[in-house]
């Protein structure tokens, strides 16, 4: 019997009639899974990747169990002010990812379709909206979001802020990268920190922020060093671990957990064996649920993902003495902000750093920012000698993907790279 499928089916059946009961059941399941992660500890994974699985699961459990002390955020929101105020930040993409991993996403997707919410919208957002609308997701204390990287935020957050009746803060990041833009965003981040202080009754002091941004700077530095080792060595891993890295480098950036994770990663890779397998640079979401991609890239020494641009998108040096500007610079100069040139340059740098043999752009259903830029990025990377594949699919809704087609495309790409470079 497939335990996850059965459990997901139970949740789906309960949601329409008893969403609170479904939430309790889900929480029970996640707590059991948390215990399993500690006990079994995923033996194939190195310590850093086992640690990150537990750390992210802890956040999800806290968000569901203690919503009164949690805030909903978009993936590119700087969360240092929230962690300083003792709030649990969680991103809607992560929550939806967990629901999809629990195989109960269909009830939420069906609900949003019934409400007339466009089926062409990003599935992560639709799953979350469905979970909120049906009452499975509890009301958080407040929300903070930004326009960087994703138009979906500009729809989902105002919609849910109104629906839940909770306050929100929106950080409007200019499209053009400039020092004026950094100052503009820094002002907003100062206001956002005051908003967080007001919401929680726990003022966000500049000293505490400096400490948090200092941790962020060290984390980023550790992660970049870790990527350098990827050129020769390989840490065994699965697709999900890549998405956990995205969570750690965004939502938990500035926390002790994030810094510890980056240190552990660095320690692990220093001890990892030399490997000559194919190295892939991944752009955009990693479809960690897609059977064909899992089969080709999970725990496979012959071909593996070195990193994903969502994990390194804002890896720029940070001056902790000016925390608001440091966070603002991260947003303005994120390679996901502005035109695709930023993503191209960052990808070329990271491909060199990690010794990538090829790049895969995952054209996630509904993400116009990435699918619209895909051809331009592919052309530019190939001009630099990096073979690039555009892979259409959906990170969390299987109905928008053809697994057979994905298997053929990715398989052929790996064969092509293997013949070419190894």
């Amino acid at each position, binding site marked *: 019997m497939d335990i996850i499928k059965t459990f997901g089916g139970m949740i789906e059946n309960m949601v329409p009639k008893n969403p609170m009961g479904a939430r309790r059941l889900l929480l029970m399941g996640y707590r059991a899974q948390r215990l399993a992660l500690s006990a079994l500890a995923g033996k194939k994974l190195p310590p850093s990747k086992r640690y990150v699985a537990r750390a992210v699961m802890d956040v999800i459990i806290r968000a569901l169990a203690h919503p009164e002390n949690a805030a909903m955020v978009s993936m590119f929101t700087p969360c240092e002010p929230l962690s300083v105020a003792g709030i649990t930040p969680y991103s809607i993409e992560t929550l939806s990812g967990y629901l999809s991993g629990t195989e109960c996403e269909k009830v939420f997707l069906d609900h949003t379709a019934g409400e007339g919410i466009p089926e062409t919208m990003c599935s992560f957002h639709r799953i979350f909206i469905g979970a909120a609308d049906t009452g499975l997701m509890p009301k958080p204390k407040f929300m903070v979001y930004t326009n960087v990287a994703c138009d979906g935020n500009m729809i989902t957050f105002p919609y849910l802020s109104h629906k839940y009746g909770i306050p929100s803060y929106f950080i409007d990041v200019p499209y053009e990268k400039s020092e*004026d833009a950094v100052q503009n965003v820094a002002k907003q981040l100062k206001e956002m920190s005051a908003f967080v202080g007001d919401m929680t009754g726990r003022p966000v002091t500049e000293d505490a922020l400096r400490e948090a941004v200092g941790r962020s700077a060290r984390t980023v530095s550790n992660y970049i060093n870790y990527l350098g080792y990827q050129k020769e060595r390989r840490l065994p891993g699965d697709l999900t671990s890549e998405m956990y890295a995205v969570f750690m480098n965004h939502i938990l950036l500035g926390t002790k957990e994030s810094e510890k994770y980056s240190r552990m990663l660095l320690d692990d890779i220093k001890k990892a064996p030399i490997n000559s397998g194919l190295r892939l640079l991944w752009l955009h979401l990693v479809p960690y649920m897609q059977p064909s991609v899992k089969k080709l890239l999970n725990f496979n020494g012959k071909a593996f993902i070195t990193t994903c641009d969502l994990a390194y998108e804002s890896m720029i040096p940070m001056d902790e003495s000016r925390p608001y500007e440091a966070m603002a610079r991260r947003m303005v100069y994120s390679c996901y902000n502005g035109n695709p040139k930023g993503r191209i340059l960052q990808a070329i740098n990271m491909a060199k750093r990690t010794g990538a043999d090829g790049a895969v752009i995952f054209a996630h259903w509904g993400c116009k920012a990435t699918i*619209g830029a895909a051809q331009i990025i592919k052309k530019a990377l190939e001009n630099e000698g990096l073979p690039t594949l555009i892979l259409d699919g959906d990170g969390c809704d299987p109905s928008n993907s053809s697994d057979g087609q994905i298997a053929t495309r990715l398989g052929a790409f790996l064969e092509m790279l293997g013949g070419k470079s190894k």
Partner: protein
Amino acid sequence: MMHYVCKYTPVELFAGFGEKYTVLDDMPDNFDLSDRIAHPNLCGFGKSVIQSALSKGIDKLVLVNCCDTMRRVYDIIKDSGTCSFLYMIDLPHKCGYCQKEAFTESLLHLKSAYEKYTGKQFDRNAFKSAFPPLQRVSGPYVGILGARVGREIEAMIKKSIPFPVRNLTCIGNRSLSMDINALENVPDEKQLFMIYADALLSQLPCRRMNDSTARRCLYADPNLRGVIYHTIKFCDYYGFEYSEIKDKLTVPILKLETDYTRQSEGQLQTRIEAFSETLSGLENKKAKKRSSIKEHFVAGIDSGSASTDIVIMDQNKNIVASVITPTGGSAQSSAGKSLDEALHKAGIDRSSISRIVTTGYGRSYISGSDESITEITCHAKGAHYLNPAVRTVIDIGGQDSKVIRIDETGAVRNFVMNDKCAAGTGRFLEMMARALGLSLEEMSTLGLNWKEDIIITSMCTVFAESEVVSLVAQNKAVPDIIHGLNNSVAAKVSTLVNRLGLKEDFMMTGGVAKNTGVVHAIEDKLGIKLYICKEAQLCGALGAALFALE
């Protein structure tokens, strides 16, 4: 000629350089040029801009950083190198002081860029005289709301609707509140542009802005008589507004979704005409007008994509004869042959028929009819005749599925239809039957004996077909696969039903009503009982005959 696409574009600035400007909103026939260089899942409007830029040799184009699609449209056109002046304005999402300052800088940058491009000087007087006077419109009207519509759809709506129509989408509601005379006393150029930026940003917000609550005034206008709400495939902003207002509006609303091409004009025409019939209370008027006419026989012809159905009725509303034949060749010849067959069955000749009403996709192509009425209105009429307790009609035909809400008189109160995609239609089942090597009759009952609950995840017909083929390869039992397919159709149809809300009694019509497996799946999914009768497939023709009689 400068082309632009967004109401936040500072077109008056171009007038200041003596430049003419026009909106780029053509609906192309297809996206062949766009699809060569851009991903097909961009929104239709974005693709139409790329298509126009590549096919019409547009030389000067100014875009606005409206959404992810428009940002990428800019990148793609820039990469193609077809425009000599291509510019994207950075538009903030908020209207605070910080944002107004930033937008002022954006406008000044554009001005410098255009000065550099043309070598011309900016003329303040030409700029000031370009501001159009504010227009006040009064009287009842039907509003086009939601995502922008192309001029072709706007024309189609204006032609079909019995009220003045106001296009309130995007550029249609561009309106700057500026005191032009006050600009005389502003010597500083930055200050002048700050006032201009303020006026542009203070317009009625589009859904892309962070706070769009001011849009509520669009729905609260007492002169509003009906709403045609347009959405574009892969543009997500307006689906949310539709979801918010659909149950709150007190006037009729029709949702139209397009991909911003002219490919589905026939289907759009059906919906717009049906909506127009709802607005004008056509059913009641016709009943009044014709109640005094005494005639013996009438005919209703439903010219569908899969079958042509005929009902001949006498003056006492008795069905004298009916025929269902596959539509082959043209709508006209199929209708002619079927009518001859029905007349033969009824034992009467053509001259005994005093009135013919046609419905269905081919309704406008059949000559010799007295009137054509959309199948939505006819299905409602027919369903009411067959069972007056019915309030929700689920009609699944060959190429579309629709759900119609009717009142106690059989008049249409609301309806929804599937989009262009074939998921959840008879065509979907037909293709799956072919993939399984079965007839439709076999498909309709084989799935009832299922054992394993297989989920067909793909809604897309093409993906679903390959999923079915791979399930067969895995030796999955055919009844289990069919059960999965039935559930897939039920899920799609349930989505439409839920959009209107559940209201008893339910009736299912159309060819798929004969498929027992699908009927059971819909009943299970919605937890309802469907009324099905042997005349289910004739419902449209029956309604047409009733209109002919009235």
